[in-house]
C-alpha cells in the first residue's frame, strides 16, 4: 500500500462520513493537488512531492490532517 493510496482512502471516507458531493470535492482536491484521485491505486508509487500536495489539498478542502 502506498501513502498516496492511504490518503485517497482517508479522503473518500471523510467525504462519505460528511455526506458531501463526492465528485465536486474530489475534483477540488484533484485540481489543487494536480492528481486525479481516480488514478491512484494501491500500486501507485509514492512521490514525496505528490504526497505533500495531496495532503495539503485535503487539509484545505476537507480540513483533515492526514
Amino acid at each position: 500500500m502506498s501513502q498516496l493510496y492511504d490518503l485517497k482512502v482517508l479522503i473518500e471516507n471523510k467525504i462519505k462520513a460528511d455526506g458531501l458531493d463526492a465528485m465536486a470535492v474530489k475534483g477540488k482536491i484533484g485540481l489543487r493537488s494536480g492528481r486525479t484521485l481516480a488514478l491512484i491505486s494501491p500500486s501507485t508509487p509514492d512521490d514525496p512531492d505528490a504526497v505533500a500536495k495531496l495532503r495539503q489539498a485535503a487539509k484545505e478542502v476537507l480540513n483533515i490532517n492526514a
Partner: protein
Amino acid sequence: MKWTLIRTKVLAALAACLVVGVGGILALMYYSFARNSRALAAESVTGAQKLFTILETREISKMTAVSETLIMNPQVGDALAARDRSRLIELTAPLYPKLKKEGITNWMFHTPDPDMAVFLRLHNPAKFGDHLNRFMDKEAARTHAMVAGNELAKAGFAVRILRPVYDAHGGLAGYVEFGEEIGQFIHAMKRQTGDDYGLLLSKKFVDRQFWADSSAVWQRRDNWDDNANFVVADKTTDNDSIIQFQGEVAAVPAQGKVLEWFHEGDSAFVRGIFPIRDAAGNTVGAMFVVRDISGFYLAMRHTRNVLVLVTAVALALGIFLVLTLLNRLVFRRLEHIIVVATRVVGGDYESEIRVESDDEVGQFEQLFEQFRLVFVDLMAHVPELQEK
C-alpha cells in the same frame, strides 16, 4: 470581496466612474458659480462706478445752477466785496436750510486771491478767517473760473464747486463754494441698486486728530484702528465684517477691481472696489461695493444638487445594468465551466458544458466541452479505471 476577481475590479472601476462623474459635476458647478459670481461682482463694480459718476455729475450740475442763481444777485457780490459778513448772512442764511435739505451741506464764501481766506461758512458761521490751501482754491485763483471736483478737507470728503463772485462793477469780490458730502451718495446708491456700499478714505489724506475730533462731534465710533490703510467714512450697512480690503486704496485700478465672493450664514456676497479721485487726481478714497447674490447662489446650489442626484442615479443605473449584463453573459457561465471542470476531475464524466451562444465565452465553452470529451475518452482507456 476579493480584489483578484474581475467582478470586483469592474465594480471598482464603475464606482470610480461614479465618483469622478459626481466630482466632475461638483467641480463644473463650482467653476460656473465662481465665474458667474465674478461677472456679477464686475457688473456691480462697473454699475456702481457709473452710478457714482452720474450722481457726482448731477450734484455738480445742481450746485452750479444754485451758484449761478446766487451770483446773479448783485447784493451778494457787493456784500462780499465790502467784507460785510452780517449783510452776507442776512442775504444767504435763510436759503441755507433749504439747500441743506437738498443735500448741499457745505456753503462757504472766500475772500479774493491771493489771500483766499474763508470769509463765511454758512454751515458754521462762527468759524472763519482760516486758509484751506486746497488744490481747488489754487485752481480757482489761477483760472478765475469755476472749478468742480471731489475734495477731502477737514469738513469731510465732499464733491464741491468753487467759482468767482463779482461785484456790481465787475471786480472780483471773492469766491463762493458749495459742497455735498460724498457719504450721502452711497445711501442714494443703495436705494437704487439694493447693494451695500462703504466709502473708504486713505489714511494718507486724513489727519488722525481730526478723525478723532469729528468722530466725537458726529457721535460715531472712532474706527481709525479698524483697518491698516484706510478708514471707513460711511457705509450703508451696520455689518462691519462685510467691508474687508487689505490693499492700498491708491493701488486700486481706475476701472475698479473685483475682490472675491464669500459666505455669511446662509447668504452669499460678492465684493468689489473702485477708486475715488479728488480734483487734483489723487486717489484719496475708494468705494467698496457688496452685492448680495444669495438668490443666485441658492439657485446654483439647487441646480448642482439636481445635477448631482441625476448623475448619481444615472451612473448607479448604468453600474447595475453593466454588472447584470456581465453576470449573465460572463461570470455565471464561467462559474458553470469551473463547476463542470471540477466535477470531471472528481470523476463525474457525465457533466456537460452547455454552449449557450456563439460569443467569446460561448467559444470557450465549446472548446472546453471538446477538451472534456477528449479527457473522458482518455480516462476510459486508463487500465486502472477499466479494471474497475
